[in-house]
């Protein structure tokens, strides 16, 4: 069982190329998601506070 798992991660000797490729893709995809959601939260919460303060511009 552990041998099979080890073989899977070894990828026939190509593991040192295959896994960094998948890891880099996952990192970039997650980073893009984090950046977009952080910006969305910042702008929507600021807008909400502003609308609450001035009492206008409700959508």
């Amino acid at each position, binding site marked *: 069982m552990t041998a099979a798992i080890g073989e899977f991660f070894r990828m026939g000797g190509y593991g040192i190329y295959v896994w960094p*490729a*998948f890891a880099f893709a996952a990192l970039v995809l997650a*980073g893009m998601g984090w*950046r977009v959601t952080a910006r969305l939260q910042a*702008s929507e919460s*600021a*807008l909400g506070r*502003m609308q609450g303060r001035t009492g206008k*511009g409700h959508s």
Partner: protein
Amino acid sequence: MVNILANPARFLRLAGAVLPWCWAVAAVSGGIGLWLALFVSPADYQQGDSVRIMYIHVPAAWMALGAYMLVAAFSAVALVWKHPLAHIVAASAVPLGAGFTAICLVTGMLWGKTSWGTWWVWDARLTSVLVLFFLYLGLIALRSAFDDSERGNRAAALLALVGFVNIPIIKFSVDWWATLHQPASVLRVGGPAIHPSMLWPLLAMAAAFMAYFAALLLLSVRAEIAGRKLQALLIAAGRDEQGTPAELRGQAR
């Protein structure tokens, strides 16, 4: 003012309806794609298991090109019809396209090291994709280089249209020049020259990347619309001499 917000309101409603489907497609086809790519699809008879890099490299390359075509199309719409939402969509797609291009380049280097024995060659395909990456970075820099956001938008839209000439160069570089990079094996005349056991994981991953891109694009456009509304409110508040709280002014950009 009404004109600016009228269409975005319709957009926000539409985005709210489409967004859950984007997440669902991204999660389901991403799960299926990873499972097929890592466990089901066979190792290549020449490249062994290193061929599995293809299942992220190729979809990322398609997204890099697709995102740029979207940027160019919306830039054209923005320049010709002065549609306010078009600049926002183009600006939102640029960093996402840059991300997919980075994935394409880095996974390609790792794959190149195993199959060609080198991280990088200055052949036409690799060079033109690197140019695409710098174009994306240039679009980000150019848009933010102007104090007047309208001028920044126009300059970036013009650069996006000029840079479009690079897209057919990337696509056909493998046919026009003798490249180390192999020619197309999926999007080619005469149909895909790739076995279904490798084509399906590729298509599943491509669907997942596309859905994820669409979801992030919608969220990013939503963030930008909220930012512009906030800016409009701040300007209106300033005009009413109510005074603008400093912490809100800082978040207006």
